């Protein structure tokens, strides 16, 4: 074991891991985060806490993680390179670890253009791959990015993101390889709708043996309505929603579309379970956290292993 992470334990044991996420509030009320956390207790192995997701200001991921940790949940600290330079990031990692946060996800972050602070400076001192390397070096070498030694280095279980659907498709496997070589332990993928394409990517991953180095958690997002399906298809960058899925959602009456979305998510998990290299699932039910237990249950992923 490289770390004390529960998630790491489950993954290295070869069991399918389940993670979900919880967006911190746009305010300072800790109750919001506690409520969301409560919904996921016993249902998932770790809870991602997003970092100014979609470039909107929210409670800091670090603070929210601490709240979850205090509730006895396993938090997963998301960190984007957009908002802090390497000094601030390392400081936050030290802080997080000091509070018992042992998982983190290294991301570049959505562009500020889409958020509520489009005028903000785009820091990008380092990119996500370099962040992975930095966290790995902190853990393995016990050094800061500047080369100085760390007293009591933080031991983070390091995650990254992978989008098998963005262009250019052909370098997507290589992109994962880069993250792997930078030291990533696991990746959570972009939500999957186009299963054949995902499988194609996964095959590439396996062909290069990357699945041996990196645990791949397949991203699942249930769709609430045909409107959402269309929106994801047309508006969200890097999302690949096949037409027949939109058709299927549109084929049922409005009231039952949410249920249909859940059905689809469950079916997908069932199918993906069988795919070589899939080490677990990351269920992103954006502002729909209450449906996560149902999905996890119906997908036959309960109970979660006790650690």
């Amino acid at each position: 074991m490289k770390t004390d992470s529960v998630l790491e334990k489950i993954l290295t044991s070869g069991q399918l891991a389940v993670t979900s996420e919880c967006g911190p509030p746009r305010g300072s009320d800790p109750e919001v985060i506690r409520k969301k956390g409560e919904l996921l207790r016993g249902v998932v192995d770790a809870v991602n806490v997003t970092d100014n997701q979609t470039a909107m200001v929210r409670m800091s991921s670090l603070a929210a993680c601490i709240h979850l940790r205090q509730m006895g949940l396993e938090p997963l600290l998301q960190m984007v390179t957009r908002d802090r330079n390497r000094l601030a990031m390392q400081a936050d990692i030290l802080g997080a670890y000091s509070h018992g946060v042992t998982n983190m996800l290294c991301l570049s972050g959505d562009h500020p253009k889409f958020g509520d602070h489009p005028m903000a400076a785009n820091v990008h001192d380092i990119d996500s791959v370099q962040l992975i390397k930095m966290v790995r070096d902190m853990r393995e070498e016990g050094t800061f990015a500047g080369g100085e030694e760390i007293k009591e280095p933080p031991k983070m279980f390091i995650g990254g993101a992978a989008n098998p659907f963005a262009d250019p498709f052909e370098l997507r496997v290589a992109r994962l390889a880069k993250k792997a070589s930078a030291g990533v332990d696991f990746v959570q993928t972009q939500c999957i709708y186009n299963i054949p394409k995902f499988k194609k990517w996964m095959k590439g991953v396996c062909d290069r043996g990357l699945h041996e180095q990196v645990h791949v958690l397949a991203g699942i997002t249930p769709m609430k309505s045909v409107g959402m399906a269309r929106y994801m298809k047309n508006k969200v960058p890097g999302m690949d929603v096949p037409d027949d899925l939109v058709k299927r959602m549109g084929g049922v009456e409005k009231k039952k579309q949410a249920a249909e979305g859940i059905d689809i998510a469950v079916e997908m998990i069932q199918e993906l379970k069988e795919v070589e290299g899939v080490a677990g699932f990351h269920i992103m039910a954006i502002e729909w956290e209450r449906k996560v237990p149902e999905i996890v249950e119906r997908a036959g992923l309960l109970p979660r292993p006790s650690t």
Partner: protein
Amino acid sequence: MITAERKPLEEILQSVSSFDRILIVGCNECVTVCAAGGRKEVGLLASALNMSMLKAGRPVQLTEHTLERQCDPEYVDELAQLVTGADAILSMACGCGVQELARRYRDKPVLPALNTKFMGAAERPGVWAERCAGCGNCVLGVTGGICPIARCSKRLMNGPCGGSGNGKCEISDEVDCAWQLIWDRLKALGKTDLYEQNMDAKDWRPAGGGGPRRIVREDLTE
């Protein structure tokens, strides 16, 4: 080339509102080429200012002059005579020119009429696009001649983010995904192995992280 574009007239008017004699100075280098501050733009601005002032009932005296280059002291010296007769200088050069004027003519307010934008190239007539961020440590050799620092919206050094689609960046269909370009080019060159190597976190000191930069060529200094 440094590219720039004219500030909104309103803002320029505001900035010169307290002066009666204004010298408008253009530059015959980059800003001429990007149609922001050459002789012609100087003429257009003078005309526009004159009309606006007339309209406001506060006519001013405007003098137009375009220097070969506004960022070299010898050229800037040429202005001495004209500056004497002016209450303020309105520079239509990039920020370098504005500062050179301000440095040389200490007692005269020097006001910028342009917003200096970026170092870019002409994509096609009338369209300029950012190409170089002046980071001081060029990586173009390993990125197929396309700069990820200047041309990737997230300055990603190790490949595209998940928002890249149809060769375009997630921020706009007008912006090419730099990494798509890099990838295509590396493929064409048969050098995709360059992509596989991880690029280390960048040392930003040469990019200005180490404070204002200068270049000294001892052999040319006097």
